[in-house]
């Protein structure tokens, strides 16, 4: 050792190349082989998962439909002063006529209409109507003819909207996802009674935290029993913990509907034993209570399993040592056992929280209106309103929020303190 450290500079291999270089060369083949092994999975994930998700997230800023459908209009409109209180002149309407002719042919004008409708309600019908009639227009004097089809063509706000969203990219979806918009005077929040997403986001976080807490409180003792029972019994108990995984999520959620509804098993039982009046049955479903109860049940195994595997590694001799040193049962638990299981709580909490924050089916079925999550809104925009851009923007917001929370968690608890076993 001493003779190699004595020489200055990097260590050299026998042939004079730096040791690091020749080591890297020697390991390259091995690394390549290892990479080949994971290549199929990697490709599979890239093609079926990462690429579609990337494409989907890209939609949150993509706005090509406007410049693609109205190329000439957009070009001419650039010269129009949006702060003027007057609709653009004849040149813009000439370009609009040319664009719309092609668009009506290719039937893309309705899609453009629904895109711009997100920004200004009413534009959709404007485009539909004009698309039908653009064929019948006579050359010249287009401005008049357009305004004759619909007087909204004379509305400055319509033209402002088109101009504002004439770029290839837009921040509109992201602003919408935080209840904001670029109005005439720049950034502003939408009207109080139209705000929904920030509130939903907040509720998603609060409910997810609540679910994580109940999972921790309920899961800790179970994990402890699992880890301390003789193997025969703990195996049986473990099967019971895993049992929910064997039934479909939908079935489990439906079972909770049967249990929780006002004429359901729980209410019937409470009424039968006289705890609850028949006329005042508890509302356990279609509200936040329902979401918390059902999701706690569904996510509990994700808390118990990491906790269990960490508790398994905590030697019982720690508690014994604490007691032999004079600690009573509580002190031995709180000062010695519990701190050693914190990594398990951390792992379980991260797992449960991240699963909860993106949950969809259960809140949809038992959450009612007050118990739904942001993901239900995303699903709505994907499948019902078809506003994929907004759905993508909401998804990005959700994702970045999780990353931020993860970062905060790392700062406070330290991600090294998370152990799955």
């Amino acid at each position: 050792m001493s003779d190699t450290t004595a020489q200055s500079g990097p260590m050299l291999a026998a042939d004079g190349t730096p040791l690091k270089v020749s080591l890297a060369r020697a390991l390259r083949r091995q690394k390549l082989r290892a990479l080949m092994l994971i290549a199929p999975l990697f490709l599979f994930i890239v093609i079926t998962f990462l690429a579609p998700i990337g494409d989907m997230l890209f939609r949150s800023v993509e706005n090509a439909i406007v410049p693609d459908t109205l190329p000439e209009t957009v070009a001419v409109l650039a010269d129009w002063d949006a702060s003027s209180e007057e609709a653009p002149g004849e040149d813009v309407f000439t370009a609009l006529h040319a664009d719309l002719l092609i668009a009506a042919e290719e039937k893309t004008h309705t899609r453009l209409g629904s895109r711009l409708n997100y920004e200004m309600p009413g534009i959709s019908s404007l485009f539909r109507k004009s698309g039908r009639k653009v064929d019948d227009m006579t050359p010249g004097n287009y401005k008049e003819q357009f305004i004759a089809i619909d007087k909204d063509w004379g509305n400055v706000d319509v033209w402002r909207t088109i101009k504002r969203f004439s770029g290839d990219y837009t921040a509109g979806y992201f602003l919408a996802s935080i209840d904001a918009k670029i109005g005439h005077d720049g950034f502003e929040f939408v009207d109080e009674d139209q705000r929904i997403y920030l509130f939903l986001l907040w509720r998603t976080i609060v409910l997810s935290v609540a679910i994580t807490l109940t999972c921790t409180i309920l899961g800790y003792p179970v994990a402890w029993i699992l880890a301390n029972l003789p193997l025969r019994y703990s195996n049986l108990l473990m099967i019971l913990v895993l049992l929910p995984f064997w039934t479909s999520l939908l079935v489990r959620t439906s079972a909770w509907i049967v249990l929780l509804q006002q004429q359901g098993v729980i209410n019937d039982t409470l009424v039968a034993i006289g705890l609850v009046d028949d006329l005042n049955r508890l509302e356990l479903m279609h509200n936040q209570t329902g979401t918390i109860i059902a999701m706690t049940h569904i996510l509990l195994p994700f808390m118990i399993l990491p906790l269990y595997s960490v508790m398994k590694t905590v030697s019982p001799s720690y508690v014994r040592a604490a007691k032999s040193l004079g600690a009573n049962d509580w002190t031995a638990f709180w000062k010695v056992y519990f701190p050693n299981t914190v990594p398990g709580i951390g792992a379980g909490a991260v797992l449960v929280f991240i699963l909860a924050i993106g949950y969809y089916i259960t809140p949809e079925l038992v959450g009612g209106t007050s118990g739904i999550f942001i993901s239900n809104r995303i699903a709505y925009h994907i499948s019902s309103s078809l506003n994929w851009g907004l759905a993508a923007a909401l998804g990005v917001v959700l994702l970045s929020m999780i990353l931020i929370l993860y970062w905060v968690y790392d700062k406070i608890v330290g991600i090294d303190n998370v152990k799955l076993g």
Partner: protein
Amino acid sequence: MEAGAQDHIVRFENVQKSYDGETLVVKNFNIDIDRGEFLTMLGPSGSGKTTCLMMLAGFEPATHGEIYLNGQPINNVPPHKRGIGMVFQNYALFPHMTVAENLAFPLKVRGMSKADSDAKVKRALEMVRLPQFGGRRPAQLSGGQQQRVAVARALVFEPDLVLMDEPLGALDKNLREEMQFEIKHIHESLGVSVVYVTHDQSEALTMSNRIAVFNDGIVQQLAAPEVLYEQPENSFVAQFIGENNKLSGTVTAVDGETAQVTLKSTGDKVAALAVNCGGKGDETLLSIRPERIIIGDENAPNKMSGKVVELIYLGDHIRCRMEVGDSNEFIVKVPNSHAHAALKVGEVTPVGWVTEDCRALDMI
């Protein structure tokens, strides 16, 4: 309670223990441990040593019998009220605390002030010669250092009694010998009573005031190390402690202290100390230590003939394996001196022993 019980810090009275309700792991355990004594429980794996220690520390209830600590029955006293220090086999240092916090733990739960506890922790660390390690985590210490911290933690709250369950089991031979010396030294300077568990007989012999040899849930013999080695009371102890030659035979006569035995394999008639051999006609196992065999002397008492099978040169002595009777595991330690002519493999030579060195014991 009889008078004088106060001299014994611990007393086990007819203690039995069963885990499953079917087999007794500890069958009938009686022992008195003196104040300030270093008592070792020695026995093969599974013989119930840890179980006895756990009953004393309060982590396992005795199925039957009574345990006294300082003359008080403690069967119903919870572990944390017994005030017994304990060193665990795997040290059981709390991984989330520093060394100093580990040592301060027993003081803190006793409500000691920070200043007092800091002073004691410092002194305890000095005692085990780790004064500068207080800020480290247990995982940042070597095995031997962890072991010393564990000893310091068991002693820092000044208990009268410290239990150690194979504390050196995980260490290599050199370190183990060094630590044996250190523990012994600490025991002598503090005057605490120590109950020590090991299955390493040389460890037991070098450290203990007395050794309780365990087997099969009972104490086979409880005595000082030299007594155990030189006067084993039964064949298990003779076999377990040190090296031993055994020859089986039948008792033909018992005459006071001496028994006349006819060897099974050769029919030789020899004399031995009648220790535990029953009476005339009973089978017996003769036990002779290898260093007590007289070799190459035609006039030796109890003379038989043996054939040299193997010679191992060990510097100060030569270890000679011989065929005597039907046993070819008969070991003789020949001092490496001029008085002893060189032996050769295959040579037939007389072997014998002084009657007092040969003990007639029970058959196993």
